[in-house]
């Protein structure tokens, strides 16, 4: 009788045992079993089972991880392995792919961070959703003017007293720009920017306190300072309770230290705050101002149980109601303005009002930059798709074999997607490193303080989804296209891409170059506009002109001495004073009347009060009449107009005519004689037309101006000028600005956009060319045999070059033709916002197309000539 070993233990053994051990173990077990089965079959069986069980130990159990057929892990692993091998097999191609995609992603990430920064302005404040600025809007000459941010004092009082239940806080401020003041302790003196602000501000804006509490402004002689200011004065110690002086005359006590405001907040750069009540006490004239004087600003936080809409509705007619019975309303018959709320969310991008209309500039800029980001990323994705589809024919056989071996189409799609994800993930890592590297210089260029939010889950979430999306987008075409090949035709060799197979690729190349040409045109146009405006005549000379703000009354009492001493140094040719900066208009006034004026025409002029030496100092130019003369006493009732004003007033031969100016807040009601007319002096934005302006010698006590003697360097002149100031006014640090620098800062936004757009345009072109380079090399490689045969038949290198380049050149030409009218339209629209602007000339756009064509030719020619120079013997021999 032949007894066999028990079945089940044997099956168990075969299931778990390592394959390389199995034969030996099974054999030995069998041999032992056979030798023992004679004596006692049951005992032998038992022993067999027991032995099998004893093999069930780590060294003998096979590895299950790789061969478990129910888990697709192995499949994925193989996808990536094959993908990786494909990457390595075509190093050049993969390199182009990854670099191109990484560049695109870097740009997109930087732009994304920039856009988020723009959109998250003021989010630093916790009560973001509940804070608003009070503005006014009203009808004037049939037009509804909005966005008037300056309010009269009684309105703020009215809001507090009558509408207080709608608001948790009403916080007036002295001016959004703040003011410079000299802060001092016994041993230190520094100039810092600050403002007067309502007592509720710290709580309302949720200041992050380092020392002290949110009640710091309740103390009327208190001052709250920023952390950096505190460090500059008191080091690391707690300064609360320490004494300070403001502008050397006001004694104050530190009542709190707040964390410095980040750059993307409304209070960026504010280093100290003084209580509003202190301002009212010290500048008591404020409380006496009536409803006509709009000069204050106010922020509110709405009460917890009220919505923004409700609060807005409640106060809308506050001014009209309060003033309807007042005398001045009855006199002039005006009805006053609506009071509106501008929510904090709109402060940054929707608060630029000009002539009563909301300007779309800021939000358009954000959209423009965001669009660039999307386009650059799109270009990079197109590259990827093109390079992958171009390779498709080479991989057609692989697809055929895989399909014949039983691969499903879904497996192939998986394969190609995993390859694209591999590239995308590599590119993403590269891009992350790149962003980290270039962020400091990007911040400098964009004027931001962006940090990489590495601990922010939204950042990672958006990065991941963005990577995933890119992978999907970039991989979709090759994945779906390649996997659709029919194995029979591919393997038989009859597979031909066909005439139309390259059509999508060509379309994408055209699209790529449409975007590139568009970006080049935009950049060129922005630069052109910038140059045009920078060359604009300003009507005075900026070089060597220094402005010093008068920070104390001493500047006025010692004005004469200052002037004498400064001129004695020989460093300055002339010294003058004025009531405002040369580079900005501080006041606009109405109340002017003259002979021949239409009585219904309410004329407003930019008003600048200047000392008689002002003209000589800044170097303005007369077209008619003469300048003020210090020795002519009657010149105190003289007035100088600019050309714009003459045109605005519609005056002929203005010199010698008289103008009556009646203005209550200036306390003036007298006739002024026109002394002269100057060429327009550019004082406001260089992108706007010059405003009609009048210059009078009346109360010029805010700014001191001086011109450094031509030929003397500023380095030589400044110390000597400073010495005069420290001798005469020792209490105030010498603080000056160069007018030309001030002027140049007006271009900062446009300069930034220009630079950003320039960099992005260059990158876009580089990415497009990377793609073209890859495509050209692929084409050349595929046509090696053809080139060889043509050469043998006598074609020259020139012929070959033309053969290989013309396709691309045609595509780029086509792209330029499409892009040009588009760019023209976009630029026309974009430049509308600048009133002083250049014409878009066709040459800019043609130039952009030309640049794109040249770069294309260079890229493609490199490959074409390389291919054309190959020895035909070699190319024909190889197979």
């Amino acid at each position, binding site marked *: 009788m032949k007894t066999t070993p028990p079945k089940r233990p044997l099956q168990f053994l075969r299931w778990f045992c390592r394959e390389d051990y199995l034969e030996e173990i099974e054999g030995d077990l069998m041999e032992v079993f056979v030798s023992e089965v004679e004596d006692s079959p049951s005992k032998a069986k038992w022993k067999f089972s027991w032995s099998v069980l004893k*093999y069930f130990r780590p060294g003998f159990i096979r590895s299950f991880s790789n061969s478990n057929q129910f888990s697709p892990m192995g499949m994925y692993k193989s996808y990536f392995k094959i993908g990786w091998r494909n990457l390595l097999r075509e190093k050049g191609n993969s390199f182009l792919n990854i670099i191109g995609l990484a560049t695109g992603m870097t740009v997109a990430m930087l732009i994304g961070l920039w856009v988020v920064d723009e959109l998250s302005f003021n989010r630093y404040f916790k009560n973001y959703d509940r804070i608003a600025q009070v503005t006014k809007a009203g009808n004037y000459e049939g037009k509804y003017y909005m966005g008037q941010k300056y309010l009269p004092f009684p309105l703020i009082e009215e809001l507090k007293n009558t509408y207080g239940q709608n608001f948790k806080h009403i916080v007036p401020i002295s001016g959004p720009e703040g003011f410079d003041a000299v802060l001092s302790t016994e041993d230190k003196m520094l100039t810092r920017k600050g403002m007067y602000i309502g007592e509720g501000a710290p709580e309302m804006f949720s200041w992050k306190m380092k020392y002290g509490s949110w009640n710091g402004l309740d103390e009327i002689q208190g001052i709250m300072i920023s952390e950096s200011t505190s460090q500059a004065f008191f080091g690391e110690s707690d300064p609360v309770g320490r004494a300070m002086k403001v502008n050397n005359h006001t004694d104050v006590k530190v009542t709190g230290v707040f964390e410095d405001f980040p750059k993307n907040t409304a209070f960026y750069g504010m280093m100290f705050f003084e209580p509003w009540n202190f301002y009212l006490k010290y500048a008591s004239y404020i409380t006496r101002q009536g409803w006509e004087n709009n000069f204050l600003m106010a922020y509110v936080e709405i009460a917890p149980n009220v919505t923004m809409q409700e609060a807005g509705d409640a106060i809308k007619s506050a001014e009209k109601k309060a003033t309807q019975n007042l005398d001045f309303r009855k006199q002039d018959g005006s009805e006053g303005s609506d009071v509106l709320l501008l929510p904090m969310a709109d402060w940054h991008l929707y608060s630029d009002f000009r002539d009563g209309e909301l300007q779309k500039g800021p939000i358009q800029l954000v959209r423009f930059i965001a669009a660039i980001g999307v386009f650059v990323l799109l270009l990079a994705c197109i590259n990827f798709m093109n390079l992958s589809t171009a390779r498709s024919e080479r991989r057609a056989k692989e697809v055929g074999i895989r399909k014949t071996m039983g691969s499903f189409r879904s497996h192939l799609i998986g394969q190609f997607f995993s390859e694209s994800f591999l590239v995308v993930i590599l590119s993403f890592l590269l891009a992350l490193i790149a962003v980290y590297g270039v962020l400091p210089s990007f911040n400098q260029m964009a004027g931001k303080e962006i940090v990489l939010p590495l601990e922010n889950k939204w950042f990672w979430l958006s990065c991941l989804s963005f990577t995933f999306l890119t992978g999907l987008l970039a991989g979709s075409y090759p994945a779906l296209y390649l996997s659709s090949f029919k194995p029979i035709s591919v393997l038989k060799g009859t597979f031909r891409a066909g005439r139309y197979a390259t059509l999508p690729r060509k379309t994408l190349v055209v699209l790529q170059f449409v975007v590139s040409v568009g970006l080049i045109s935009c950049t060129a146009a922005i630069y052109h506009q910038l140059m045009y405006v920078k060359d604009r005549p300003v009507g005075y000379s900026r070089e060597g002109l220094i402005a010093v703000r008068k920070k104390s009354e001493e500047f006025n009492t010692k004005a004469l001495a200052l002037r004498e001493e400064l001129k004695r140094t020989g460093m300055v040719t002339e010294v003058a004073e004025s009531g405002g900066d040369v580079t900005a208009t501080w006041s606009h006034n109405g109340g002017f009347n003259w002979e021949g004026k239409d009585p219904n025409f309410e004329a407003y002029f930019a008003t600048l009060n200047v000392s008689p030496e002002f003209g000589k100092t800044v170097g303005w130019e007369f077209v008619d009449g003469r300048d003020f003369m210090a020795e002519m006493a009657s010149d105190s009732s003289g007035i100088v107009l600019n050309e714009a004003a003459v045109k605005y007033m519609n005056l002929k031969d203005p010199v010698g005519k008289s103008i009556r100016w009646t203005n209550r807040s200036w306390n003036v009601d007298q006739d002024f004689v026109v002394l002269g007319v100057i060429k327009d002096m550019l004082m406001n934005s260089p992108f706007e037309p010059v405003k009609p302006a009048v210059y009078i010698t009346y109360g010029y006590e805010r700014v001191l101006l001086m011109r450094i003697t031509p030929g003397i360097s500023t380095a030589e002149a400044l110390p000597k000028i400073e010495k005069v100031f420290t001798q005469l006014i020792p209490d105030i640090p010498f603080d000056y600005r160069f007018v030309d620098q001030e002027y140049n800062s007006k271009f900062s936004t446009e300069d930034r956009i220009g630079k950003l757009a320039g960099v992005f345009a260059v990158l876009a072109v580089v990415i497009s060319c990377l793609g073209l380079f890859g495509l050209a090399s692929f084409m050349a490689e595929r046509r090696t045999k053809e080139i060889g045969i043509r050469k043998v038949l006598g074609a020259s290198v020139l012929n070959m070059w033309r053969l290989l380049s013309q396709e691309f050149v045609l595509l780029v030409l086509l792209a330029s033709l499409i892009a040009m009218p588009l760019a023209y339209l976009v630029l026309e629209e974009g430049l509308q916002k600048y009133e002083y602007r250049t014409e878009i000339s066709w040459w800019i756009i043609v130039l952009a197309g030309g640049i794109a064509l040249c770069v294309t030719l260079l890229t493609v020619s490199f490959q074409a000539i390389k291919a054309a120079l190959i020895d035909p013997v070699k190319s024909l021999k190889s197979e």
Partner: protein
Amino acid sequence: MAQHSLGEFEELVLLMVAALHDEAYGVSILSGLEKELGKSLNISAVHVALKRMEEKDFVKSRFGGITEDRGGRRKKYYVITALGKRVLDEQFALRSNIYNRIPKISFG
């Protein structure tokens, strides 16, 4: 030397592999040891020891021919390697060294 460590049972198996020279495979080692030790062992213990020593390069193996009573499965023959032999020598030297130091006193 950690990698040259040799357990007691492993040493016995290795000795048997060396002794059987060219005829050592699972069952022959097992029966040889059973005869020497006079008790019955489980074949799995022999295999565990063999596999361990193969990893440590003390023995090497090859497949032999097919035999009838193994149901058509090949035998796997083990041969001691030079390293294995050296380890055995060292072990032996070590033991006899210490053994020789036992004072000659009667334990009677």
